[in-house]
């Protein structure tokens, strides 16, 4: 089970839940399960996020594997100049 941490910007859509455990093998599975658990969160997940898995930030990909017991953070997407 991955430990998923939601920052204050997403916590608003999960009734204050800021941390939960989810069994997901990929980012795609993780986002689907989060969206099902918290429907109000769904549109914000679809807007695009960066996902940090054990410290490595993944962006623009949904197939990155999530190891068991991983620490996962959902972040705003990062662009640059």
């Amino acid at each position, binding site marked *: 089970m991955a430990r998923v*941490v939601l*920052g*204050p*910007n997403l916590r*608003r859509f999960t009734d204050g839940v800021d941390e939960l455990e989810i069994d997901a093998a990929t980012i795609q599975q993780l986002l689907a399960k989060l969206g099902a658990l918290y429907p109000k969160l769904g549109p914000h997940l679809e*807007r*695009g996020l960066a996902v*940090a898995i*054990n*410290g*490595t*930030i*993944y*962006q*623009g*990909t949904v*197939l*990155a*594997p999530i190891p068991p017991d991983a*620490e996962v*953070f959902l*972040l*705003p*997407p*990062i*662009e*640059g*100049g």
Partner: protein
Amino acid sequence: MNDIPLAGTAPKAELKWVGTRGPRPDGLDKVTGRARYGADFRLPGMLVGRVLRSPHAHARIRGIDISKAAALPGVKAIVTRDDFRDMPSEFVPAGEMMVNYRDIVRNVMAREKALYEGHPVAAVAATSASIAREALSLIKVDYEVLPHVIDAAEAMRADAPLLDETMITAGVDPAPTKPSNVAKRMEFSTGDLKAGFAQADFVIERSFATKPVHQGYLEPHACLASVNEAGQAELWCTTQGHFVVRTHCAKLLDMEMSQIRVIATEIGGGFGGKTVVYLEPLALALSSKSKRPVKMVMTREEVFLSTGPTSGAHMKVKIGVRKDGKITAAEAELIYEAGAFQGSPVGPGCMCAFAPYEIENARVIGYDVISNRPKVAAYRAPGAPISEYAVECVIDELAQKLGLDPVEFRLKNGAKAGTRALYGPKFGPIGLVATLEAAKNHPHYSAPLGPNQGRGVASGFWFNIGGESCASLHINEDGSVTLMIGTPDIGGSRASMALMAAETLGIDVAHVRTLIADTDSIGYTFLTGGSRATFATGMATVDAAKAAIRQLCARAAKIWEISEDAVVWEDGHAKPAGQNAATFPPMSLAELAGKAGKTGGPISGHAEINAQGAGPSFGTHIVDVEVDKETGRVDIKRYTVIQDAGKAVHPGYVEGQFQGGAAQGVGWALNEEYVYGADGKLQNAGFLDYRMPVTSDLPMIDTVIVEIPNPAHPFGVRGVGETPIVPPMAAIANAISRAIGTRLCELPMSPPKVLKAMQAHKANGG
């Protein structure tokens, strides 16, 4: 598609090409004037395009009458808001970005309202520039001039003029019932802020302000569009991302992407400002109407009036520290100006603010605020230089309060591998501490200072990103190599790619030529930005070279009539291995290339990847300033940039990035600002009055490349282009404060402000 490439091999201990300072492939053409920039392209029958811009900061557009202009001989096409379909307000994918086309279509061409001076209202294509100018004067726009607001703090007031009467602040519970100019509130936090400050022996809280500054690229925006009767378009433009240009233009003009071929010209600087579209959709629309090629080139005044600077900001920063020098808590409030449409870089500003430090209890709140200025665009490490400027000034003041050396204070609190960033994840291997140690041991840091001089230090952080990149590597018949990539070269990436390809193939880099392919010639590649090109396109290049090597080995196996598994690639040669070792003499790449036709046909390697695992970059700057006590003028006497590059593929270009970031930072710190009149009009839309640093303003900027390899890249590369602009403003502010004994908390620190601060300090007994 290889969606998530493996980390690849660990950096080799000994590299032959990566890390060398070979000739610059773009150098000769640039210094001889042969390089073809956006404005250098011409086509037969070409028309001249010009834009009519709003003279008002805020005005409702009641009507546009183009009849007289259209009747002018030589005018071939005119476009206004009526030529662009309105788009709903929603964030939709555009390549790797999420964008709101309601705002983009309105920024390209004003619809209901002109929202800033310089906002496009109409565009004309004519047979000459003089006719186009005359046509613009004949277009009658019926404006209802509205009250305007320029500064973000004023725009947040309840009685401020509203730019968008439908804007309800996002990120607030419950949602406001009334519209405002505040597009969004966001928050990042960790730990227990109250408890953290309770542990502090000293707390310093300061307010800061910065002004919008322009990226200042030398080459103005320029493009040439040609649309034929079948609706097929070609577009030459100066851009950091021609695929992104194609995406936006296709959407705005209801065209299929396959109908638009975009060719990225040589680019004369971008720094983030050429990641968006301004002229391109207008030129395509004019060409589509006239069925003639249309060329559009901005004047410098237009660049200042209507293209994105970065945000101005108002900030509060509060940091608590124990007597032993350990930071216990930190808090910041950031208000960033977005310009006329939402989307300031306040998000990354929040995330980066305290990133260089290990702080258990912290919170940053950010506000994205619109006002009657041009919409901001990305500018090197968007958002980070602003917030980190404020934080690094307070860090310096805390070090003074504690009587600690500012580098030692940073070392006590500096982020390292395993440190949890405010925004959540723990850092992997990072180089902040290494840059601080290098600063401490650099001769600059212990050199004596003269009268009226001060030394400042500051550190900086930027994430860096990866993303989608393609590379096609073709082995030519003579053994030379042509490498095609899709990221425009704005900082030496053609050289870096050639070096990485040569290293992987085991051939002399002189035999590799890198070209920037157009959108029809290579797969989708995200733009050059986020310090991603050398990292992400570099990974694609290495993968493409490996794919070519697999083919080369397979050809050798066929020639030798042995199994492919029994061939290895070493030092640019196919060699029989295992039980076949030494059975056949090694075959070089050139030999195999010469036999390619007879052994199966041309040999190429391709890679299409979405690179992940970008390594963050940290830097530390040291600067010495001398302040003229009579005028308040600040001279930069000595400057040293120290930064973690992961691995410098071409150290010369890396040093150039370091120096360029510092030079831009000097301008941001000391002189650059947008000056608006009471009428909401920009007063200094030109380089005479918008004071960027020139050679005589700068010393030789020294550089130190620190290399803490990024484990996700085959050669350990981190992006280097953005971090160098993060520390300069604070480093210079800290140096000035130590030179004059009082601290300025507002940029730019121009002579009148420095003089005023010195006079106030003296009046207070300083």
